[in-house]
């Protein structure tokens, strides 16, 4: 096992792992980010055996597909930040969207 850059770890056999801190990121942000990578890679998420506040995300190349690299894992980390911002915005202001939809359909809900 070769440490490339914390928290990205090369696991061998064409797979890499990144550890995500649940104190900083929501599970839905992690899953939404992982989903975007399912076109090119097999993605696995699991709680770290020794720390339930850490989720390990493992990306593995599909047969004859694009190889996982440290760069891809770093991009995953950046995408994770975008996804977390979306979660935060939705948590804070998503209720306004509900108000808009409710107001929009008020004429037919009378």
């Amino acid at each position, binding site marked *: 096992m070769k440490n490339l850059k914390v928290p990205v770890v090369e696991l061998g056999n064409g797979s890499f792992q990144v550890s995500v801190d649940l104190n900083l990121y929501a599970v839905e942000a992690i899953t939404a980010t992982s989903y975007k*990578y399912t076109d090119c890679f097999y993605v696995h998420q699991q709680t770290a055996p020794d720390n339930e506040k850490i989720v390990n995300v493992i990306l593995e190349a599909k047969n004859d597909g694009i190889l996982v690299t440290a760069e891809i894992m770093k991009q995953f980390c950046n995408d994770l930040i975008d996804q977390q911002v979306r979660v935060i915005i939705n948590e804070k202001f998503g209720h*306004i969207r509900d108000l*808009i939809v409710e*107001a*929009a359909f*008020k004429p037919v809900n009378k």
Partner: protein
Amino acid sequence: MKNEYTILPFRFDHFNEEEYLLTNDVGEYIFLKNEDFEKFINYELDSKSDLFYDLASKQIATTDKVEDVVNMLATKFRTKKSILRDFTSLHMVVPTLRCNSSCIYCQVKRHESSDHSADMTKKTAKNIVKCIFEGPSPYIKIEFQGGDPSTDFEMVKYIIEEAEWQNLFKKRELGFVICTNLTLLTPEMVKYLKKHKCDISTSLDGPKDLHDTNRPLQDKSLDHHEIFEKNVKMVRDIWGDADCVSALMTTSKYSLGRYKEIIDEYIRLGFNNIFLRSLNPYGFAKEYKDKVSYPIEDFIENFKEGLDYIIEINKNGRFFVEGFAALLLKRILTPFATGFVDLQSPAGVGIAGAIYDYDGSVYVADEGRMLARFKNYYFKLGNVNENTFQEMFNGKQLHEIIENSCNECLPGCADCVFQPYCGADPVRNYSVQGDVVGHRPTNEMCIKTKAILRYLMEKLHEDDPETIKVFWSWIK
């Protein structure tokens, strides 16, 4: 310092290395430099700055009472979703599966011209018209599909006259369209269609060699393109209006690299618009994928080149519209709804359009009928000879399909920056990916639509006054 403003719901994505694109539910958009985006979401943007005023004018943030902005956004949202107000208005009817063409990408399993086994009966036709008028929509458009409906023109006439009779009592806004390759139309047929206000929609895939490769006639001794050209002229002469006939093109792998020639052919034949359309993965197009299909990335590159060429043609003074770009631009630049059944949220299948097959079977979309030709009946709602309107259009099956086709809550769509301009296509998802929800990261329709939306956004962001003028001229 934290500034006093409220951030309203929005979606975002990186647009390029330096900028973000932000959109909201009603389709407003704005580009923000990276540093401005960071300031904005951290409440560090000066609420007296021009940039903030831009954000506020697009209802992405406000210093006013949130309730007031909510009401304004609600009105816009209702307008965007107004397609839902009237329920199904497009009713596609298949009088026969007979056809005299043998298109290489045929999606229907056509019947030979002499094979009458898939002709509609008058009883079924009557029940179809009855079913159509049981719907609540004040607008009814009956579109004849096939096969080629002109091979059973007597049935087309019967349905038109039955619908006109029903409408004497129902008083809807009634219209007709016939989709035909034009080759069998006679002056008498065209005069009838004109009299009954039945528009003509046809197919033109490009110059002679390409059109005849993609859409050969079954009778090899006949020249499809030559007959097409002669009959377009005949139709226009009778109608006295160049826009009375519109054409659709389909991109086979033989069309790639030839978009300029295809566009030139449309212009040579006097058309004012084209819809650069990729191949649908149904029927023969799916069965013989290796022979006629291509990677979606190839289509996207061809589309961009074609669009650029069309923009230049317009800049040089010839009004000519690319239909898909015009549709998306209307969604981006105006608050209005657009009636394109294939790209709605919720999907337009069943609730905006439905198709009635020659035997009375009702499907949520033309593609659902095409799947049925290959023994897959997932999108069949029922049969007009056996089921009521309520059973078919308010049944469990249609509810389930629609519930799974709102892109506001589909994985990969819910937080997509292009969500307000896009839609869901559960039939295509099912056909290609095995379920109505689909898998966005590998979904070709998603890849294509996002790439084209991004390209249009790039054009808007370039802000070339001439290009913008062209775009606005396309939005009726």
